[in-house]
């Protein structure tokens, strides 16, 4: 186990271990997404108050939660890079920021589209919405800070510090609906049949949830592989790989 994790820390081993994983993970995620979307949009019963409006939860909840998870991953990788100087951690921190930003942006957009018919407004400055917007700006800030330096290592150090500081925002987003009066509703508790939040409404959300997480890792792995090839472009193993690709083509 430790041996395996230790190997993942080396860019070359990461590249070789993920080669077979990508098509498999993409396929499973897309299947789950298709199943969840068809079930959620086509067959799950409409909500008694919102009618069909509520169906946006099948995208809104998974992307928002995955966006928050992405920031925790980013901060963890930044800390690992700062403490142990693991190259692979820096690569994952770099490539996961734009993916996480896209996810939380999607959460904000779908939330706004749901908010207009339900609440009567696209946007309100309540604690949940505002802290989520701050998370998007943190992602963008980490990306901008890294890009602002000419030297890769200086940029990654500055971005790592911001990434670590910003992680305090994640529990604030999660608990905002409990700590303050917000327009955004609290976290749904999942109940049995007949109760509020019955399984026929929630099971499709688990499908889209796992699909969204799977696709997040597909994007991160693909982007990591590109970054590995670029950073290691002068090493023998990348040269060999390139040679092999060229002879195949």
């Amino acid at each position: 186990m430790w041996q395996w994790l230790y190997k993942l820390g080396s860019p070359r081993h990461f590249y070789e271990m993920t080669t077979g994983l990508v098509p498999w993970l993409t396929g499973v995620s897309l299947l789950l997404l298709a199943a969840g979307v068809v079930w959620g949009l086509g067959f799950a019963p409409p909500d008694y108050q919102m009618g069909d409006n509520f169906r946006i939860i099948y995208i809104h909840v998974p992307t928002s939660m995955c966006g928050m998870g992405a920031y925790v991953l980013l901060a963890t990788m930044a800390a690992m890079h700062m403490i142990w100087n693991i190259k692979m951690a820096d690569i994952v921190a770099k490539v996961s920021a734009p993916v996480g930003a896209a996810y939380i942006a999607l959460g904000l957009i779908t939330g706004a589209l749901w908010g207009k018919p339900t609440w009567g407004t696209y946007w309100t400055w309540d604690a949940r919405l505002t802290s989520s917007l701050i998370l998007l700006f943190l992602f963008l800030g980490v990306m901008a800070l890294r890009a602002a330096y000419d030297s890769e290592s200086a940029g990654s150090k500055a971005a790592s510090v911001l990434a670590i500081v910003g992680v305090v925002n994640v529990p604030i987003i999660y608990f905002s609906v409990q700590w303050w009066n917000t327009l955004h509703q609290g976290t749904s508790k999942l109940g049995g049949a007949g109760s509020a939040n019955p399984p026929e409404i929630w099971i499709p959300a688990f499908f889209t949830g796992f699909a969204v997480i799977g696709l997040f890792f597909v994007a991160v792995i693909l982007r990591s592989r590109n970054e590995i090839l670029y950073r290691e472009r002068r090493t023998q193993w990348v040269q060999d790989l390139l040679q092999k690709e060229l002879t195949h083509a």
Partner: protein
Amino acid sequence: MNPIRKQKLLIVGVILGGAAVATALLLLAFNKGLNAFFTPTEIAEGKVTGTQNIRIGGMVKKGSLLKEGLQGTRIEFIATDFNEDVPVVYTGVLPDLFREGQGVMADGHMDAKGVFQADSILAKHDENYMSSEVKAAMEAAKNKQAAKTVANGGAQP
């Protein structure tokens, strides 16, 4: 762990701890200032003075909704948190989810008579989702139960 790694771990810990403490102090200082709205209880306690614009939140009290005007564009209702009540007056279009027994948020100000003059109304949704079929079945069961109680009530002393 070698000393340099240990030192770096300490630095990261201090950065994170410092940020957490600073944020916690900041949030504690804001305290309830970060609330999106005032509750009727807070208004009754005199937390709102004068006629500045504020936002209130609560439930639309059952049986309190009054519609006036040609299309019912002028409405009156009582916002409650089951402790204190605030009467609200509003003229305009309502969101779809606005109804009695539902959460509501209103922007506006308190007038001299203690009535909240709303400029806009937002409906608050709770964290419960239910299919229309289940809701209809529950309503039917409730009505049957009520009918039974009435029937039995006549026979009982």
